[in-house]
């Protein structure tokens, strides 16, 4: 279908973009890669009166090294993230998860920031941002603020972004020490969203697991950490048995939905199995 008519703005800087968003009124929509927005506009599930296209805001694109953190511009495309040498070195988990997103063509347009701002519970990158303790740098009419991933995702398709605010870049703390990572995604057909997925980062020290960070995709309206499993793994032996035992609590505190793809109890089962697989692989077992 053809989307409803709209006014189009194409700013070239963050300041211009903020102004365009402010002038766009109540029905303004920000467009990043458009890979989620255009489909819903085609189905007329969204009909914004103004679209502010961030595609030419060069300062929002690219990855830079900022000491103990990596800074990923919100407009960096999935394809760019996958091939970026800094991401490969310091945040491999993001690259691994991004490779599972959608398909080749969609990854060429879709962006890291767009996927986070969209906050789809089945989206692969929010759980990764949460597991890595990423921080969102948000620009608004009154300047910039930084929001930790743990506070950014509020509800189904909802973030703390206020009207008039733009997600500019994402700060990802570098993992220091001997970390292994793995993203385990379960879906059934090509280019499909996660039924459940698990993002794991594990630090090993002297044959033990010193620290584990586990993000869950699609186990509730927002991404979640598998806190009980993380706690059980802290200081545990780096052995398949210890990992399997800890993974049994992966679904604790989650509230998965039941839909055409899976019932809630099946999702709970998947969370345990995928957590075991992801942690086992991340721990190099």
């Amino acid at each position, binding site marked *: 279908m053809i989307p409803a*008519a709209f006014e189009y703005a194409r700013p070239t800087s963050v300041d211009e973009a903020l102004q365009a968003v402010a002038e766009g009124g109540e029905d303004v929509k920000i467009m990043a890669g458009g890979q989620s927005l*255009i489909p819903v506009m085609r189905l007329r599930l969204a009909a914004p009166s103004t679209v502010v296209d961030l595609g030419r805001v060069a300062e929002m694109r690219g990855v830079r090294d900022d000491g103990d953190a990596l800074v990923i511009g919100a407009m960096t495309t999935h*394809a760019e993230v996958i091939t970026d040498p800094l991401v490969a070195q310091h945040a491999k988990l993001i690259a691994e998860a991004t490779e599972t997103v959608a*398909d*080749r063509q969609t990854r060429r347009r879709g962006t890291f920031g767009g996927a986070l701002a969209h906050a789809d519970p089945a989206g692969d990158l929010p759980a990764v941002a949460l597991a890595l303790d990423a921080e969102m740098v948000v620009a608004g009419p009154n300047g910039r603020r930084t929001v930790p991933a743990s506070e950014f995702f509020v509800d189904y398709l909802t973030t703390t972004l206020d009207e008039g605010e733009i997600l500019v870049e994402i700060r990802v703390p570098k993992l220091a020490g001997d970390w292994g990572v793995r993203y385990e995604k379960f879906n059934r057909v090509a280019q499909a969203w996660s039924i459940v997925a698990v993002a794991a980062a594990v630090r090993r020290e002297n044959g033990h697991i010193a620290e584990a960070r586990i993000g869950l995709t699609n186990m509730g309206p927002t991404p979640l950490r598998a806190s009980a499993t993380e706690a059980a793994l802290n200081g545990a032996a780096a052995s398949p048995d210890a990992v399997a035992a800890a993974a049994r609590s992966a679904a604790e505190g989650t509230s998965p939905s039941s839909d055409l793809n899976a019932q809630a109890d099946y999702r709970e089962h998947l969370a345990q199995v995928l957590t075991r697989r992801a942690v086992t692989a991340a721990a190099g077992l």
Partner: protein
Amino acid sequence: MTQVSMRVDGVSYTDEVEPRTLLVHHLREALGKVGTVVGCDTSNCGACTVHLDGQAVKSCTVFAVQADGAEVTTIEGIGSQGDLHPVQKAFHEMHGLQCGFCTPGMIMASIDLLKENPNPSETEVREGIEGNLCRCTGYQNIVRAVQQAAGEMSGSSDTLGAQA
């Protein structure tokens, strides 16, 4: 209306478009590039795949205004009747199509894949073109066609070397 300029298959065009015009509709309806087709309403099928500044995209999920200033290549711009692109030739020879509706997109996605990975395994081909759906062939011959084209494109010097 917004003015957009783009080079499509080597020819420059400047037109007035409504911002809501999808690139695929602009290509087909304003520029007559009907080789590129629309197969779905949900950004899934990939039939509309074209190259935007050298990269495969779903042209039903890009507004024409976003392609302002860009170089677009469609299935009509990669070869000619007498001089098919190696991927076109391989789809023909390996029977990589039945009804042919998915073929323009399959070929554009495959060219993009081969640029990145000139010698893909069967699994890599299947994953590389996962954004394109075919309702006829069962994919078997499509995968064969892409691998044959890969051999011809990257291995042509090898083959010559082997023969010499």
